[in-house]
């Protein structure tokens, strides 16, 4: 009967909760960083907490991005969201149109912080802003770059990886044929991001209509009519010829590269922290390759996450949130985060600072991502991707690409099916969200 007493004790009827009289206002930030990145994130939060005495940010690791998203959805529906949450780039439209978030730029304006949003690096700013205003605070932005084993290339008689896919293919086949390494490259776990989406941006291929979704919810996938199809066919050929390997579950693609088994690896620039620490090989990195008939290649797009602010908290808590976001946006914070993790600095000022201090002289590969992201002027094909239910469409696409890898479908057939499945998902998103997002327009204020 203990339980009864317990229920009686817990049941409280509250009219309007009074704000806590604690000396420091405490706010929660749910995030998806694990391992070294998680440790660095905790350091960042400690730095902020030590830098002032009014607010305390509590960082809570909630698993991977999917688990964080689910956690925040469940918590929001139960009316107990955290103040801040880190959401991956793929969840942008879901968060934007959720009606559950506070626009970051307005919050900072309103609380009197002067963050120069025009100074953010273009692909970063364009990805995380809607109708010209920043909707979430860019936090960990990355982009895929091309990692390679210097010794392997030299042994095979090459200076460095070629700039085009065509020449690179020849190099990888030569490496394999000369027995320099067992495999030319590894299939990245997020190949849809690096080898299909970023591939499309860099090679100026449309992924969907309406500027990849930037111009409206009516967007439809079109990558079954672009070079993506031949790209999938290329990957399949590499797999069949043993030039590319799949790491599979229970192992990470990165390990195939860092252990010296495979000669190259397309992966996020955020692996710098790990690779610098763990790789015993003589490695370097360069830009992602492009097709030989595309010149010049365009910018790549970002991946990673941003910090969203959730609705439903007291003004005191938003004071704390604003102070923290301002801290995150500061150039010094950015430079530090860039240095310890490998994510790109989000602002030009931070990038300039890192340059000035000669950081890239010691760490040349750290600059590749910034240069690759900011080369040229982003156009409709390279600004980023703004598809609703983007996780769902990606999983459908991944499954279809796997059907090619397992020889169940031809590349064209698989991409047609992926586009068909994807478009059904997009229509469902449109049906649910038509007419939303007006609160984000500055003039609606």
């Amino acid at each position, binding site marked *: 009967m203990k339980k009864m007493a317990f*229920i009686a004790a817990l049941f409280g009827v509250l009219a309007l909760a009074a704000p806590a009289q604690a000396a420091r206002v405490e706010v929660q930030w749910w995030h998806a960083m694990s391992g070294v990145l998680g440790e660095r994130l905790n350091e960042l939060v400690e730095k902020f907490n030590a830098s002032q005495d009014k607010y305390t940010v509590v960082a809570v690791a909630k698993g991977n991005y999917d688990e964080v998203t689910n956690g925040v959805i469940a918590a929001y529906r139960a009316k107990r969201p955290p103040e801040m949450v880190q959401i991956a780039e793929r969840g942008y439209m879901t968060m934007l149109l959720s*009606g559950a978030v506070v626009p970051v730029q307005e919050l900072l304006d309103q609380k009197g912080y002067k963050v120069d949003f025009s100074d953010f690096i273009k692909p970063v700013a364009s990805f995380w802003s809607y109708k010209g205003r920043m909707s979430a605070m860019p936090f960990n932005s990355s982009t895929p770059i091309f990692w390679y084993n210097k010794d392997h290339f030299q042994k095979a008689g090459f200076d460095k990886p070629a700039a085009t896919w065509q020449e690179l293919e020849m190099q990888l086949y030569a490496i394999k044929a000369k027995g320099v390494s067992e495999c030319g490259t590894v299939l990245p776990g997020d190949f849809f991001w690096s080898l299909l989406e970023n591939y499309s941006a860099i090679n100026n291929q449309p992924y969907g209509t309406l500027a990849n979704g930037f111009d409206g919810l009516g967007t439809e996938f079109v990558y079954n009519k672009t070079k993506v199809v031949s790209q999938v066919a290329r990957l399949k050929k590499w797999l069949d010829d043993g030039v590319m390997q799949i790491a*599979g579950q229970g*192992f990470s693609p990165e390990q195939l590269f860092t252990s010296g088994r495979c000669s190259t690896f397309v992966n996020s620039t955020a692996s710098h922290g790990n690779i610098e620490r763990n790789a015993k090989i003589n490695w370097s990195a360069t830009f992602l390759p492009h097709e030989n008939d595309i010149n010049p290649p365009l910018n790549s797009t970002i991946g990673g996450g941003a910090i969203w602010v959730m609705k439903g908290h007291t003004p005191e808590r938003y004071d704390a949130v604003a102070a923290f976001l301002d801290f995150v946006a500061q150039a010094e914070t950015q430079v530090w985060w860039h240095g310890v993790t490998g994510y790109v600095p989000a602002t030009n000022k931070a990038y300039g600072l890192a340059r000035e201090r000669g950081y890239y002289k010691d760490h040349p590969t750290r600059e590749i991502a910034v240069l690759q992201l900011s080369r040229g002027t982003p156009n409709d094909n390279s600004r980023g991707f703004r598809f609703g239910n983007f996780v*769902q469409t990606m999983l459908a696409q991944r499954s279809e690409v796997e059907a090619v890898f397992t020889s169940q479908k031809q590349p064209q057939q698989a991409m047609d099916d992926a586009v068909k499945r994807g478009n059904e998902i997009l229509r469902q998103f449109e049906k649910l969200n038509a007419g939303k997002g007006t609160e984000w327009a500055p003039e609606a204020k």
Partner: protein
Amino acid sequence: MKAGSPIATSSIWPEAPAAPPSGLARSQHKSPGETVAGRSAVTERAGRARTTKRGQPDREPGLKRANFGRGAGLPTLLLLPQVLILVFFFFIPSLRALTQSVLLSDPFGTTVHFVWFDNFKALFASGEYRQSLVTTAWFTVAQNVITLAIAVVLAFATDRVVRARSVYRTLILLPYAIAPAIAGILWAFLFNPVVGPLAHMLHGLGISWDPNRNPNDALWLVIMAASWKHICYDYIFLVVGLLAVPVSLMEAAAVDGAGPVRRFFLIALPMLGPTIFFLAVMNFIYGFFETFAIIDAVTHGGPAGATNILVYKVFVDGFINLDLGSSAAQSVLLMSFALICTLLQFRYFDHKVNYGV
């Protein structure tokens, strides 16, 4: 009946697999139709049911003949904790989950459309769902057969040996202690075609093992992993069941010249029939519901949906794709299946004892 002789029906839900049917009856005459669980109760009641019916024709099902009468106060109090917990943490959440199946809503619940049975129609029209059904059928049947077959062989061997019996038993029981998520990680690692030590062995034997590029390999891998985790469950039931096979019968058969293996197949196995039926049902339920952590760790449902069983699809659609309506509709279908399974088992195990509850 000796005091302390528990009759345990199976829990129907695998989360608490419950004490196995242990009223494994000393009765020497068991008709195959009798259940393991109900057996001693049945034999015990065989005579009494008649008297009961004569004495109290209006007896309620599932109520003790000797009971404490009609007072409502005390039983209400006794039931209260269970009912409160169920209402708050089962019924209300479940109803809310199920109403989702006729809704189209965004994950945060700001926009909700009532769409009648669109979610179900979409499922029946979807090739992925059909593929998932077929995969689930293969997965559960194969897992069931393998688990039972290995468990039967091991149980037979355990019954034979004298030396080191408890050591074997303990080792074989170990996977019961391991969380499915951890078991999945171990298997994924061991059979990884690139680095897994066991995959290397397979390659050494000339088997081109690659679950990343061969859907059949992937399906076999999750079947083996799921079986590995569950053999211990079937095994322990069978070991206990074999202990209950009357020695006199076996001796009689031995006198007739039947060898140990023959005796096992002719006498012990048929007597274990009800246990095996019970285990088969439990294996199905395990395969249907409990294996999602294994799939998640070993294959993520891939490649190309080759291991995307129904419960994993519910999980992915609800949890990762945030398509709550479709996920809820799938839950309803799964639940209907579980209901049928449960009723079947319940009727089978219970009706003799309880006269039709």
